[in-house]
């Protein structure tokens, strides 16, 4: 990366002085007209001359070896082009930011549903039929462990032990010791995973539904044994990711291999069922939360232990207790993880890995402890906000938890909350719940190029827009810095030939790629200052005019020669001395039917501190999207596994219940607090997309308690569990 800027100290708030009215403004997405008219082109929608169609074949055993394929019945079909398999095939998708091929298992099968071959034919219909006719011979190794309870497990040694948790639990004026369980979750992005591979000589062009182009290019090259320079990856439109498209997977590799062999473009789109089988899921968790507090609510101990699962050899481990490590102060702390090694579909990142499930335990536990202590749950949280990172001692950057809790409580009408089980409207019991929101914020190495000509500016980076608003915000940053109206800025993304950015993952994309665009534009301002003849710190670029040092010129006059600048950023000292996280508070109101146990969410308010908001409209959508995911995980979403094979059953959108319109109220409100995170990055922003889910589900569960007096510990809180609770309480 060329002369990279390292984030070693807090940066001046330049974007607060540029005054072009673009940064933060709720502008429409520039690609909006294309999306609403069906003209935005997603991976499966390119039709190069001669394209043929691939359908993946999946393993129907849990563990063993493929000993052979019989393609006789398939080969008889007119239009059949062949069966492809081999040592380049992947066991499972690459984990996020791997940058190299994931395990290539040869003929080994490690989970039921693993893609083991690709059938290619002239038409999709023939390929689908042919794939069903392939007979696979296996040497099965029975008895593969698929139950995380009983499968062998291991304990990584990065645990936290501070003070003496057991002693603190014995002494605490109030204590809580609870087990919580969450099922596996699927990202279930609406666009099924897809690839279109085309070779020209020994160069591969791959259109792929992918979130992290720079890493994906390296993964692909490594997996098929070519140099990265021989690979180009493109993904201008991606139909949602949520972590499920972080790394390359079966469709990319198999399309590339088949296209090379057939010397024709090959398209592979996963069937929805294959997406469930073969794309990394969120692990199920079993958690134990322990809390101890003084009578005034001051926590003396926090213990969070969890068991997750993944396939042997997969490095990813859901960081279930991520938020527990810094959300509340307590002198005695324990964080410990166990990884069950079993043969379910491997696990990986799904929106807010860690917080999305870990905060159910922490935030529902806090709610219950507050009740035991007789302290308002908002107040209990306020009393336990740490001064510094409780484990590392780092200084927090902008920390909005207290303000979010206070302002949220006020705006939501929290004072109208009644005693549990006392507010009723006919058959409906009404209640309110609260939870904190927290999600670590990161800066990931990114580069971008900005070119300024008399016609406007062009922003180029391989950053992706998976619905997150990258097209909008990157243009806004450039326009704000260069004094241009937004329609004079164009943004080209998601092409591996462009400067490499973080990609979309971990909510770090907007801040990381945005900072690179900001720095490239700042270099252009420096050059404009030079051309005008003023010091770089004096230059102002205001609506087409450049001024500084009592000099003034029209921007166009300084651009006889266009200016193109590339800039890179990486994290530095501030990431060591400081700890940056988004914070916030969720408030939920639910109605629970006393007859059916059905839970209806009536309204949710999220109040968040996310540093500088880059586009109020897309930021709001990201936050609300996350909050709705919280509702899904609280009330409906659940992967189930066949206890014999580990296979995911109900592997489609009728059986895996993502929230629908009818589940979600119109009143999904978001407030962003005025905040700048000076130590996070030079644009003072933080991630949003995952903060919205972190804690949201717990607020819903706590509202159910307030409505009914029931506590659910095994999520999701489906009607059967609520009815069971009513019965146990003699109702």
């Amino acid at each position, binding site marked *: 990366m060329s002369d990279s800027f390292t984030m070693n100290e807090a940066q001046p708030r330049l974007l607060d002085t540029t005054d072009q009215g673009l940064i933060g403004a709720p502008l429409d997405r520039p690609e909006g007209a294309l999306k*609403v*008219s*069906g003209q935005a082109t997603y991976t499966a929608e390119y039709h190069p001359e001669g394209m043929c169609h691939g359908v993946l074949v999946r393993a129907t055993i849990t563990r063993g070896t493929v000993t052979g394929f019989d393609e006789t019945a398939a080969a008889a079909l007119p239009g059949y082009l062949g069966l492809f398999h081999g040592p380049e095939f992947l066991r499972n998708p690459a984990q996020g930011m791997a940058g190299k091929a994931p395990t290539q298992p040869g003929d080994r099968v490690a989970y039921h549903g693993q893609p083991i071959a690709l059938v290619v034919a002239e038409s999709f219909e023939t390929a689908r039929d042919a794939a069903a006719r392939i007979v696979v011979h296996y040497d099965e190794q029975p008895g593969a462990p698929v139950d995380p309870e009983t499968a062998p497990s291991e304990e990584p040694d990065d645990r936290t032990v501070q003070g003496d948790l057991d002693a603190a639990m014995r002494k605490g004026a109030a204590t809580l010791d609870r087990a919580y369980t969450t099922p596996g979750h699927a990202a279930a992005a609406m666009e*099924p995973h897809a690839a279109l591979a085309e070779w020209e000589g020994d160069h591969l062009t791959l259109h792929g539904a992918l979130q992290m182009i720079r890493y994906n290019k390296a993964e692909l090259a490594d997996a098929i044994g070519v140099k990265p320079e021989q690979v180009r990856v493109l993904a201008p439109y991606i139909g949602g990711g949520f972590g499920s498209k972080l790394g390359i997977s079966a469709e990319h590799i198999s399309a590339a291999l088949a296209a090379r062999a057939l010397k024709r473009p090959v398209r592979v789109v996963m069937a*929805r069922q294959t997406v469930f089988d073969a794309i990394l899921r969120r692990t199920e968790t079993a958690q134990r939360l322990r809390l101890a507090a003084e009578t005034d609510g001051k926590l003396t101990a926090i213990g969070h232990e969890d068991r997750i699962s993944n396939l042997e050899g997969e490095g990813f481990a859901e960081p279930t207790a991520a938020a527990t490590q810094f959300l509340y102060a307590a002198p005695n702390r324990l964080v410990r993880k166990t990884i069950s090694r079993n043969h379910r579909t491997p696990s990986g990142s799904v929106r807010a890995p860690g917080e999305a499930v870990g905060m159910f335990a922490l935030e529902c536990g806090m709610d219950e402890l507050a009740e035991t202590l007789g302290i308002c749950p908002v107040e209990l949280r306020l009393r336990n906000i740490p001064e510094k990172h409780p484990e590392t001692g780092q200084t927090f950057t902008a920390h909005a938890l207290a303000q979010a809790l206070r302002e949220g409580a006020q705006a939501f009408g929290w004072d109208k909350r009644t005693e549990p089980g006392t507010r009723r409207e006919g058959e409906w019991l009404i209640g309110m719940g609260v939870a904190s929101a927290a999600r670590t914020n990161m800066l990931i190495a990114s580069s971008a190029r900005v070119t300024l000509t008399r016609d406007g500016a062009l922003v180029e980076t391989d950053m992706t827009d998976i619905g997150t608003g990258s097209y909008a915000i990157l243009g806004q940053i450039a326009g704000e810095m260069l004094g241009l109206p937004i329609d004079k800025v164009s943004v080209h993304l998601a092409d591996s030939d462009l400067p490499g950015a973080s990609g979309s993952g971990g909510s770090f994309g907007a801040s990381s790629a945005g900072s690179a665009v900001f720095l490239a534009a700042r270099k252009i301002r420096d050059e404009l200052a030079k051309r005008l003849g003023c010091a770089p710190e004096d230059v102002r670029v205001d609506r087409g005019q450049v001024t500084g040092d009592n000099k003034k010129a029209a921007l166009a006059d300084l651009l006889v020669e266009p200016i193109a600048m590339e800039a890179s950023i990486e994290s530095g000292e501030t990431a060591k001395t400081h700890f940056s996280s988004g914070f916030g508070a969720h408030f939920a109101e639910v109605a629970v039917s006393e007859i059916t146990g059905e839970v209806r969410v009536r309204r949710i308010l999220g109040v968040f501190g996310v540093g500088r908001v880059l586009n109020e409209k897309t930021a709001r959508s990201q936050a609300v*999207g996350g909050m709705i995911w919280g509702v899904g995980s609280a009330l409906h979403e659940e992967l189930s596994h066949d206890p014999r094979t580990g296979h995911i059953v109900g592997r489609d959108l009728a059986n895996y219940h993502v929230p629908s319109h*009818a589940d979600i109220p*119109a*009143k999904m409100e978001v407030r962003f607090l005025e905040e700048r995170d000076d130590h996070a990055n030079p644009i003072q922003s933080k991630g949003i997309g995952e903060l919205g889910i972190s804690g949201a589900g717990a607020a819903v569960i706590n509202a159910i308690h307030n409505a009914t007096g029931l506590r659910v510990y095994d999520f999701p809180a489906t009607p059967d569990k609520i009815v069971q609770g009513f019965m146990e309480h003699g109702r």
Partner: protein
Amino acid sequence: MPISLKVNGVERTLECDTRVSLLDALRDHLDLPGTKKGCDHGQCGACTILVNGRRINSCLTLAVMHEGDEITTIEGLGGPEDLSPMQRDFVSCDGYQCGYCTPGQIMSATGMLAEARDGMPSHVSESLIGKANLSDAEIAERMSGNLCRCSAYPFIREAIARNTEQSQ
């Protein structure tokens, strides 16, 4: 097998395999990929189009069953330069994120408004007779066949609400 369809007002003929779904005929044979495939099983609504004015999941029907039918897809509603009012409202309300479910949401909403105009009740309608007032609950109920994993639901409904008869 040859089929003739009237797609977005234009007569189109194509030669296709009897197994080709109407959705794949549009996406892969008629160069109209605006209609999306999210599940191919009638579970997500991404493939919603209008056939003779009624909304359907185009993945659940075969192209050969539609000889002579009038088909409207998102491309027929309005292009990027001449968006329909509903399309414009989806943009201004941010009634999408990734955009993948969006054509289906818009086509479904278009069909749904026509159903409501024709006096069709829904599961949450107060009465089976007379026109339903398209409250948010009515719109939510009638749009629940269209999943949006980005979860733009409140903003999708805000865009639709701007296009109901009451709001005109």
